[in-house]
């Protein structure tokens, strides 16, 4: 039994191997892009809107609303990053019902890669918002003694992010494998259904936590300033 899809080598060419993680990641990417392109190629700006467009609009608006709820000032700024995290993880997990498919998120490499992206995105967004000095000063709050703890918190939460997703998805796969060997009928179906639910929830949790980290890094500043930015920016068009 393969624990990680990384070990499942699909092809090998001149010392470069293509494992299942990367392949299924491409598949997920292809599905996401193809569906998006197919729908957005025929966008309607009038009153009559196709149901597929409505679906995409609902997804995008929901993500934006969620970002705004968490407290980030301009949802449009974070939408591509947070939205892609959510969509990628969700689609990766939901495709688990397809036989022969293994979720890329069941690979620790993928979750680590995503967690590293979040780790980098947090200071990038914070610096672009507050400048390098403003961001670095955040590590000294409430005083300089807290610097090591702040650094540890930054790293540990990244690791937690990666391991949480990996653990949940991988455990789902492992539990399904064990149950099939113990009770081959009926019960694995329920576990698959549960797996869909947990996969979706994990996507949500990952995206929300990423947003929370970014927002908290941006908010580490004088209170009055923070309150000004808390107001939702309705006119943000998401550039």
């Amino acid at each position, binding site marked *: 039994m393969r624990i990680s899809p*990384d070990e499942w080598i699909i092809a090998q060419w001149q010392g470069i191997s293509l494992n299942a993680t990367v392949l299924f990641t491409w598949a997920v990417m292809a599905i996401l*892009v193809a569906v998006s392109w197919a729908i*957005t190629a025929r966008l309607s700006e009038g009153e009559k809107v196709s149901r597929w467009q409505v679906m995409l609009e609902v997804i995008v608006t929901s993500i934006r609303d969620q970002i705004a709820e968490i407290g980030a000032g301009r949802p449009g700024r974070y939408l*591509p990053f947070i939205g892609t995290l959510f969509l990628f993880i969700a689609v990766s997990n939901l495709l688990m019902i397809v036989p022969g498919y293994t979720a890329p998120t069941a690979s620790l490499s993928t979750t680590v890669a995503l967690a590293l992206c979040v780790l980098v995105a947090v200071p990038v967004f914070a610096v672009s918002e507050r400048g390098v000095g403003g961001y670095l000063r955040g590590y000294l709050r409430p005083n300089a003694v807290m610097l090591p703890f702040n650094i540890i918190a930054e790293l540990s939460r990244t690791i937690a992010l990666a391991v949480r997703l990996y653990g949940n998805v991988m455990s789902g796969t492992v539990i399904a494998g064990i149950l099939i060997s113990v009770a081959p009928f009926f019960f694995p179906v329920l576990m698959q259904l549960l797996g869909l639910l947990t996969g979706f929830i994990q996507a949500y949790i990952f995206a929300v936590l990423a947003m929370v980290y970014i927002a908290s890094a941006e908010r580490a500043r004088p209170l009055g300033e923070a309150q000004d930015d808390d107001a939702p920016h309705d006119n943000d068009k998401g550039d």
Partner: protein
Amino acid sequence: MQIDWITVAAQIVNFLVLVWLLQRFLYGPITRAMARRETRIETRLREARDSRAEAESEAAELREAREALERSRDETLDKAREEAAALRARLEDEAREAVAEKRAAWRERLDAEQAEFEDRLRRQMTRQVLETTRKTLRALADADLAGQVAERLADSLEDLDEDARNDLAGADEVAVIESGLELPAESKARLTRAVHRLISDGIDTEYRVSEDLLLGARLRLGTHTVEWSADLYLEGLQAAVEAALDDRRGRTAA
């Protein structure tokens, strides 16, 4: 823990590419489309608001116009009522005047009728008095009275002037002497003598009784007539009374 760092790097690249692709094909177009739709809806809402405001202002104008119309209608109605009242008053006055005129005319006519009736009554009374007198005279008439009447006719002949006597003499006819009563023979002889003496000897006389002569006698010779009658007095009296009544009525009418 199996972390394949090459896969990690590949996944990071994959993720960043996916971010770019989704931004290119999903978030960008969708948010732009929604923004444009919102703009359009806002525009239409604004247009609707403008139209509504316009409609409301038009409605207000129409309301004002209607109120003005109602005011003018009320004024016109008041004016018409006043005119109607004036007209009614005028018509009433005219009717009253007309009634007064009619009443005056009626009264006048009534007065005239009354006057006429009184007049007729008086005349009737006069005639009645005369008739009574005639009846009385007729009742009293006897031979003696007939003689007296013959005497009065003879006196009348005596009183004729010369021209009248000559005219009578020129008529070569029988002299007819009529009387209301049968004349006595001596009266007849006397009259015949008087005719012969005063008019002509050759004239024959003929005596007749005429009922229309009440108390009197008449001599007819050709176209000429000489008469004495109590009726003449009575007629004279009647003429005098009627003249007096006419005179009085003329004064009343004036």
